[in-house]
């Protein structure tokens, strides 16, 4: 087992672990708030993955300044698209969480509990 290889790809390993943790929370935890936390962990893991993809060691933003030409020649210019994607992704995640939390609030108001199996057990379809 090559540990240095894992170390160099630590971001990806952590991202995969976070994704699985989140998925576990969403599917297994009975508490709805915990499910939402899991959902947010999953979101974060995907963001981490995209940011890691765009990572360049000692990278330079693609803005034309003095150091830009050297960085360009050394291949150290960072692609800005992953960051832009993450920004959009964060906005989407925040709005999903906002809608979800307001629904949770209403569910708690109407059912008096946040336990998913208990809520599903009431007025069955």
């Amino acid at each position, binding site marked *: 087992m090559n540990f240095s290889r894992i170390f160099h790809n630590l971001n990806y390993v952590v991202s995969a672990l976070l994704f699985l943790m989140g998925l576990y929370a969403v599917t297994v935890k009975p508490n709805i708030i915990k499910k939402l936390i899991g959902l947010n962990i*999953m979101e974060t893991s995907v963001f981490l*993955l995209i940011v890691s993809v765009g990572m360049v060691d000692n990278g330079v933003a693609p803005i034309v300044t003095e150091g830009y030409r050297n960085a360009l020649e050394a291949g150290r210019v960072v692609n800005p698209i992953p960051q832009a*994607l993450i920004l959009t*992704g964060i906005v989407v995640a925040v709005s*999903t969480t906002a*809608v*979800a939390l307001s629904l949770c609030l209403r569910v708690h108001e109407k*059912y008096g509990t946040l336990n998913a199996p208990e809520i599903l057990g009431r*007025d069955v*379809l």
Partner: protein
Amino acid sequence: MNLAARQPVLLVAVPLVFAATCPLWGMWKRRICFYWALGGMSVTAFLAWSLIGKVSQKAPLTYNVSGWRPPWGIQIRIDTVGLLLACTITAMSILLLLYSYRYVEKEIPTQRIVYYYTLLLLIFTAMLGCSVTGDLFNFFVFMEIFSITSYALVAISGERRAIRAALKYLLMGATSSLTVLLAISFLYSVTGSLNMVDIGQVLERMGRTSSPYLPVAAAAMIFFIAGFCVKAAVFPVHVWLPEAHSIAPSPVSALLSALVIKMGVLGIIRTLFTVYGRGFSSFSEVWGALATVLSWAAALSIPVAAIMAIMQTDLKVMIAYSSVVHVGYIVLGISVLSVQGFAGGLFNIVAHAMGKGCFFLVAGIIIYKHGFRRIDDLKGLGRSMPVTAGAFAIASLSIVGLPPSAGFIAKWNILYGCLQQSQYIQVVLALFGSMLSAVYCFKVVYYMFFTGSNVGAKMDEGPMTMLIPVTLLAAGTVFFGIFSALLMPTLSNAARVLLAR
């Protein structure tokens, strides 16, 4: 400013502007929102329908947003499939808005009517965006907009079961969206592109040079299909659908069943054929296996969901299960990989939109007039509501798939496609499902027309603004059944291009 050249982007921009300004009108006078929404969607419908005949799958209409060239900027790319969906969405949107005019007073609290029309405009915008965009991440963003909007629309009545259904829908929908985002990031990490056609070309090059990153792209394909299957409610992951679609207000149910789940199907088409189609040779094993799994899941979903539909006592839950049946047909047609089956699947998107739209709107009229939800309560409604019940009977021909309806043409082509590929078990399952569909549809028709009445035989129809959409949808299923030649050749051509390797 040359507006004609900007028509592709206006298709998304116009409803978006109308959606954003709708609450402002609502602050002044609530009633204006309806006319504002109807006006906005009429303009959009004109924009979409005037493109008919100008695009084909081979030569799509493209527009570079802000002038950025394709691999970098967002490209709007209207091909036959996109235009088919855009036309269906805009046509349905007008009918649904017209229907909502009176229906909102029944199930939606007065202070939320403004939000209701705003959300409707927003969901149409997002679906139009999904159908016309050529950019994968843009597709994801629009997908999230219509998903979040539909969670809100399911919960808008404020009833406790509606809120529970919306939360359940959200938990599954958001997880599936993340799966899609994960797939996009996988694909971006190995191709460095977000434009669907460009990714296809990059994958093809990677396949030729047998790049070591191909397994990542293959894994992305699996995540894509898994995510879109939840959105489309394909059999094992359909569990959110019956509750969310049946408890939402009826026009919203019609919208969700007729259009929103089709966006998941669109996602499957876009990824499986536009993105991965060209690089097929390098993925033949994974790609073929996925198509097989999809076709089996779809074929199994048809009888299983039909049996579930038969067991229901609530009319709207029954109709919702019937949507799972039809998504099964559409996905079966697409995944069986024959031109005729694919064209049939695309045709079923339209046929099912009309048939299922009509079903839910009829259920809505019955709820509006009598508050009946149980199938047993519908006895003798055919006498007091002949137009409503008649429309249901005609639409059920299409849902079951009997000639001369649009549903028949769609199913016939899908099954023919399966036979061409010698998928005999799928054909048997689909035919069996059709027979079961006849049971649950004609049970309702039988109750409506051939049993003693419990509401009296006096004419007591719903309001005109509700009857017109229902009648038009029912007439549409027959019209497209008889004049299927208007659509089928175009769809076959599109299918041929998409399936060409």
